[in-house]
């Protein structure tokens, strides 16, 4: 049904997203899927779940494509769809953490030159794994997707103060750990 349209300039597509035009959905997906998968991966921390969450979110977006708002409202809606999908996947999966997963999720092998930097990024990854899903989502949206606290609150369906609290508590935890490690 769809031909591969390549990967157009992502920012240009975002600005020109026209939910009323069916073809623009394909452009949107191809331009943004890597980013969507990144965000879903950071929130769910599981490859299969991340892929499922993105697919689920896109099912909803496609169904409403001709009625969605454009511009910033579209961005907010898209993020909210993705966050809902991620949290739904997390909520529905068994509360049994797979033992095989952590090894596969490790960062790249540590090289002597990059050892210090990678140690810190490992600490970020470990800390994110210990955060509750909503708090982890807030952190990912803030520091990876560069969303404002208002946008994070909308995506999570919580108060802005709660979104700020999620992020600030995570920052405090990371700061404490890095200080302990020094």
């Amino acid at each position, binding site marked *: 049904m769809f031909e591969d349209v390549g990967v157009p300039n992502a920012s240009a597509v975002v600005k020109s997203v026209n939910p009323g035009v069916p073809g623009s959905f394909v452009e949107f997906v191809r331009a943004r899927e890597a980013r969507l998968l990144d965000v879903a991966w950071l929130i769910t921390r599981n490859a299969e779940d991340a892929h499922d969450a993105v697919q689920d979110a896109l099912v909803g977006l496609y169904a409403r494509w001709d009625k969605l708002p454009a511009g910033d409202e579209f961005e907010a809606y898209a993020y909210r769809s993705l966050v809902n999908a991620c949290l739904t996947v997390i909520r529905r999966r068994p509360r049994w953490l797979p033992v095989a997963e952590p090894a596969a999720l490790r960062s790249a092998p540590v090289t002597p030159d990059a050892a210090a930097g990678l140690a810190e990024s490992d600490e970020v990854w470990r800390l994110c794994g210990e955060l*509750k899903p909503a708090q982890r989502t807030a952190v990912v949206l803030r520091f990876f997707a560069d969303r404002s606290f208002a946008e994070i609150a909308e995506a999570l369906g919580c108060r802005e103060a709660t979104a700020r609290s999620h992020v600030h508590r995570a920052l405090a935890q990371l700061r404490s750990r890095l200080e302990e490690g020094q």
Partner: protein
Amino acid sequence: MDETEQTFRDGLQQAAANRPALGRVDLEEVVARSERVSAEHEPVMSRWRTALAAAAAIALVAGVGVGLWQWRSGSVPVPAVPLGQPVASPSEPAPTTSPTTSPSAPNEGLVGTQWMAVQIGAASVVRGDGQVPSLRFTEAGEVLGSDPCNSLRGSYTADGDDITLVGWESTFKYCAEPTQQQRFRDALDATVAYDIDNEGTLTLIDAQGQLALRLLPEAKFSADRLPTAVPPDGSPEPTQSPAVVEGVEVRLRNDSDVDFDRYLVVFPDGMKVELRDLVAGGTSGYFDTAQAYTYAYVQVTVDGKKYTYQPVDYMGETQLKPGRYTYALDIVDGRLQLTFD
């Protein structure tokens, strides 16, 4: 920018850069599923359009709302009577802009019943001077209820087992039980899903998959079974104030001189956590659980050998209060020992 913030940014970028290949989005599947969901929801939509028209007419005639206080003014602006889109998927958020749509199907078990709260988060509802918190979901998409002191009104959208509760308003009377009132309202704000089990108990669930509220149908409810406002004490004090930690959170500490290759914890509520690598002297992250005591089933693996701490039962034990606790593990004379810390 704060140095820690930059560390977060760098760490997340690094993690994303190292994520495994996830494959491309399957556009064919997206479209097929979308169309399938559309077809499944079409008959329900028709019924709801009729119901909505009736509800709107009733609301106009009734003209209610005098003296109400909106406690969640920052929430997502969803109309009092929820308006959905023609197609619903499990992940899509409630619409915020379209004026021409209808809500998703209501759950018949949910609607019409007077639900009485018996548990908020990890704690029982306590019986005090005020009324027992309750909820009733109407076919028109309203939620009517009460906390210990005030009447409430909000709106909801239900889609499968997902539910969104928004637009809460309340009367504004003095409350002698502000803690329970606030916890009840926080639980409503946190709710994203619900479940009705075979015995007819309604559970509202938050985004972390934790129990936010448990409610019984009025016919099965007895206020006499609720604990009194001053609960019996005697359970261990948490290491962190319940005001900071909402539920029970437990972590493990490896007090032995060997590294645990794997460790498994099974809490009394059935929650299982299995992870690997807890070095000697190391501490795990906290696991939140609905129910915990001063011990639990724990199994650790060291060099392929399993060591198990097997509780006989939890009879007579006092459930831990909300807070953070540590199970300290050690291997002594070839046996795993657990000490509550």
